[in-house]
Structures are given as structure tokens and as C-alpha cells.
């Protein structure tokens, strides 16, 4: 052991190799490799008779995807859902995170963080099936609860998906905002009030710009997780399909086309990250 330690100490390069080989292999082979395979497969086609993948390069899949209005609708719907979920999570998360970071006593702060994390310990499926029973039209919990005051459950469909996903991803938005607010010195809030600003003004001019990187971090979770989701749509989406569902359906019958569809969320995420980078928010993460 001693001699290994000595050799390692004398050779910094060897040390680096020993440290990073495994993670780099993982990153290149499992992660980038899979992504590259996805991209390449998207340009393959399928033998309509045997159903086997034909490995010749062509743009047919992309042509189909861009010309068929049905796919365009799915893309727009998925985008709309992902954006709605992100907006709802942001609106809900900011006051919660603010209370946790700035108003709650230090002792209850820790409890609140733990409470925010507890839903993440439960299985995704359990939570979505729970929402299914809640949203069930006619005899669901929501109808039972809201019926007497004249409201109905939205039933299964777009709104249900948005509610379900917002519920699922909310902690991923709260935690970065909470961390951002924790780092925001209290005396900046004092200073703003001291200079004559009401709370709302302080929020807009001081708090919001300073936690913007945290909002971006949170939105990357809520947005990308919503963009790729298909299980929630399957369980509480009714007949509604998201991109993930289309990928899932084509997966067994036309793998190259499924890969083609799967490039859409990857592209959207890449564009989103590029836009976010331009605001400079990534630099201060």
C-alpha cells in the first residue's frame, strides 16, 4: 500500500488517470454513446415487410415528421405542457422558498426542507396513480371535495397532466430557489426598504434578478422532465399524447422513427440551454 501511495504521489498524471478513468468511460460510452446512437438511428429506415432496421442513411423519417400535422400538434402540445408546468412550479415555489429561507425560524427551516423532499422518496407511479383516483371524473376525490361548491374535476386530459407534472416536479423548483434565497443577504432587503422601496418593488428589483440563476436551474429540471415524460400522460392524460408517448408507441414497431421523434426534445433542450446561456444565468450557477 505504502509503495502505491508513494508512486501515486510522485506521478500526478497517473493519479488523474486512476481518478477519472471510470467516470469518463461512463460518460463517453453510456451517455454520449447512447445519444450518438440515437442520432444515427434517426437517419436509418425500416424494411416495411420484415420490420427489420435497414442501416442506410436517409432523411425520410424527418420528412414524415415535419410534413405530418399530427406530429406538429404533439410537439406544440408537449411544449405547452412543459412551459405551463414550469410557470406553475415557479409561481408556487417562489413564495414557499421565500418563506423557508427568509421567514421561518432556523429550526423549522430544516424540517421544511425535509418535508419538501419527502414526496421524492415515494415512487413516481404511486403518486401518479394517486392523482388518478383524485381526478377520476364522477367519483374521484376532487369531485367529492369540490362538487358541493360547484366545481368539477378537470377529468383526464391536458389539465390533469399539467397538475400531475407540476406536483411531481415542484420540489425540483423549490430547492434551487431556496438555496438561492439562502445566499441572498438579508441586509439587501433591508437596504431596499431603507431606500424607500415597498416589498413588491424590492421583490422585482432586488430579489428576482438575484435569484434568476436559481429559477433557471429549477426550470431546467421542470422543463426537461416534463418534455420527456410519457407515463403521466398515459395514466392521467386520457387520450392526450405527449412526445414521449409517440416515441414509446413507435419504439417496438419502427425504432428509427422513434429515434427521430426523440431528437425533438433533445433539440428543444439544447435550444433552451443556449438561450439560458445567453442571459448569463449559467455562469453564476
Amino acid at each position, binding site marked *: 500500500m505504502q509503495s502505491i501511495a508513494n508512486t501515486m504521489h510522485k506521478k500526478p498524471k497517473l493519479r488523474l488517470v486512476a481518478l477519472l478513468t471510470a467516470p469518463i468511460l461512463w460518460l463517453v460510452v453510456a451517455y454520449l454513446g447512447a445519444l450518438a446512437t440515437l442520432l444515427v438511428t434517426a437517419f436509418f429506415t425500416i424494411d416495411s415487410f420484415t420490420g427489420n432496421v435497414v442501416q442506410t442513411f436517409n432523411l425520410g423519417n424527418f420528412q414524415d415528421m415535419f410534413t405530418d400535422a399530427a406530429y406538429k400538434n404533439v410537439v406544440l402540445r408537449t411544449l405547452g405542457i412543459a412551459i405551463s408546468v414550469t410557470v406553475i412550479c415557479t409561481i408556487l415555489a417562489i413564495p414557499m422558498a421565500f418563506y423557508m429561507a427568509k421567514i421561518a425560524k432556523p429550526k423549522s427551516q430544516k424540517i421544511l426542507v425535509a418535508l419538501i423532499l419527502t414526496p421524492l422518496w415515494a415512487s413516481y407511479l404511486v403518486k401518479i396513480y394517486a392523482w388518478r383516483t383524485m381526478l377520476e371524473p364522477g367519483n374521484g376525490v376532487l369531485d367529492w371535495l369540490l362538487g358541493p361548491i360547484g366545481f368539477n374535476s378537470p377529468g383526464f386530459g391536458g389539465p390533469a397532466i399539467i397538475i400531475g407534472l407540476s406536483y411531481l416536479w415542484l420540489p425540483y423548483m423549490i430547492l434551487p430557489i431556496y438555496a438561492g434565497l439562502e445566499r441572498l443577504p438579508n*441586509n*439587501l432587503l*433591508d*437596504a431596499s*426598504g*431603507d*431606500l*424607500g*422601496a415597498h416589498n413588491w418593488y424590492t421583490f422585482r*428589483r432586488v430579489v428576482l434578478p438575484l435569484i434568476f440563476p436559481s429559477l433557471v436551474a429549477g426550470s431546467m429540471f421542470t422543463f426537461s422532465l416534463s418534455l420527456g415524460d410519457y407515463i403521466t400522460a398515459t395514466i392521467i392524460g386520457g387520450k392526450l399524447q405527449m412526445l414521449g408517448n409517440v416515441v414509446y408507441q413507435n419504439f417496438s414497431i419502427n425504432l428509427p422513427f422513434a429515434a427521430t421523434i426523440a431528437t425533438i426534445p433533445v433539440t428543444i433542450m439544447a435550444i433552451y440551454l443556449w438561450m439560458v446561456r445567453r442571459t448569463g444565468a449559467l455562469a453564476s450557477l
Partner: protein
Amino acid sequence: MSDAVIVSIRALKRSFGEVRAVDDIDLDIREGEFLTLLGPSGSGKTTVLRMIAGFEKPDSGTITLAGKDVSQLPPYERDVNTVFQDYALFPHMNVLENIEYGLRVKGVSKEERRTQALVALKQIRLEGYEARKPAQLSGGQRQRVALARALVNKPSVLLLDEPLGALDLKLREQMQIELKALQREVGITFIFVTHDQEEALTMSDRIAVFNHGKIEQLGAPREIYENPKSEFVSEFVGQTNRIELDGKKINIRPEFVSSAHSGAGDRSIKATLRDEIFVGATTRYLFDTEPGFSMISTQPNNGLKIGDAVTLSWQREKEFLVQ
């Protein structure tokens, strides 16, 4: 400075849990004066300042600002501005935007607030730094921006919460002089919080010495120094020899005690030098006296050696009694 009272504090109380941070304080602050709240940490001075600013609500008592009871008003409805201990500049705004903030909140037009901010920037001698972010400034420069950001609003009272604490000694001494000059120039009432007695003595028109949430003594720096009313004040403001002579407890400042043979005083005592601490321009000498107690004498370096026998002397009139 006039005799008109700008801030009037009556029976002010504030507790944090069991701790009485501010314990029944009365204080009148005159228009245009430089008043220092001096005390050790936890003595309540900062809490008083924060209550004047509106960041803390008093448990009871009133704070009157220019004749109006502001005790329960939020900070943004009080005509005071604060310079914070660690400046609290907005990190996402540049120097000019920071200085303009208060004017912008009040809805001052863009040209007007730019003009005023540039005047303020000139006042603090930071022309050319408009576009810098606070992170690109040195501590002293940040300190000045914080000052300009507050002063540009022309408040009737400026509150300063240990604003020089984070600066190094040289810069601090320079800022003390600048601050005092600035205060004379703008004529605004300054309420200055510090735990540094030297800073308080140099800058203030009056000093309120705080201890355990109460004001121990209020007066001009010279009065506080030469005639401290309590043991705490005599200890906290400057050093003091507390001795017993002829059955009477007396106090005498080390710089009034001389060991020269000429015997400059009408009180004298035999002593031997036990130790010396070189502090630059002067040396602090520690003597064992014949009656048995020890005394400190601060003098120019005089070449005394440890073990030397001398006669310590001082003027009786420099002694002070403490209840």
C-alpha cells in the same frame, strides 16, 4: 448644528427572548449633530439604530422623527437612510444604479436622478466608476458608494452601522476624517454606531455610551473621556488606573502619569518599572508602586530599564472619582 431636536426617543424597549437588548432608553438627538452610539457588542446600540431605521419594531416606547411618531412605520415610510456594516450594495447593479436606486423608487425622472447621482459620485470622488459592479470595487470604494447611495436621498437623518469596521486601520483613519468633513458639508444629522472608542472620540459631537441596553453616559467626547460617570465608561473609553490612595478610590488616565524626575504633579508615589510595551510613538510602562498596587503610565519612549526606581507623579485635578 442647532438645538432643535430631530430624533426623540422615549422609554424605548426591545427584548430578544430573555435578553433585554434595549432597556428603557431616552435620548434626544439634535438636528445636524454627529452622535455616536458607543458600546461593546450586545450593548443594544445597533438595535436602537435598527429601530430608528424601522428594521426592528420596539416592544414599547416611541421614536419621534421631526415631530412625527414613526415607531410603527415600515422603513420605506421613514425619512432616514442607512449605511450598512457590510455596505449591502446591490450586487447586480453598477455603481450608478446603486446610487440612483432611492431616487428611482421615488419616481424621480431619469435625467434628474442621473444628475444627482453624478453629483454624489463626485462628492465621494469616484468619478469614472459609474459602470463598475460592487464586486469590482475595493472595500473603501464600496464604503463610499454606500454612503453616496444613502446621502443622495437627502434624508433628515443618516444612520451608520459600524460602517468602518471592515476597513483596515489606515483606511479607517482616513475615512474617519472624510466622514466628519462630509457631515459638516452636508449638514445632515449622523447617528453613528461603533464599538471603537477612538473612532467615537475623534468623530462625534456627542457620544452615548451603551452598556447592557442602557445609556451609561451621554456627552461631548472630552466630557466622556475626562469625566466618566461610571466605572464602565472609564474602562470602556480609554484606559484607566484605578487605585486606592489615602482610603479613597481614585482614577487616573495613564497618559497623565509621568515618571520624569522633575515631578510635574502635586501627587507622587515611588515605583519600580516592571514591564514595558512599545506601541510606536509612545510606550506603555507598567510599574509596581510602593503601596503595592500596579500602575500604567503612557509616555514618549524615555529609555527606562526594567527594575529602575522612579517617582510617578500626576496632577490631582486630572483624577476623577467614580460612583
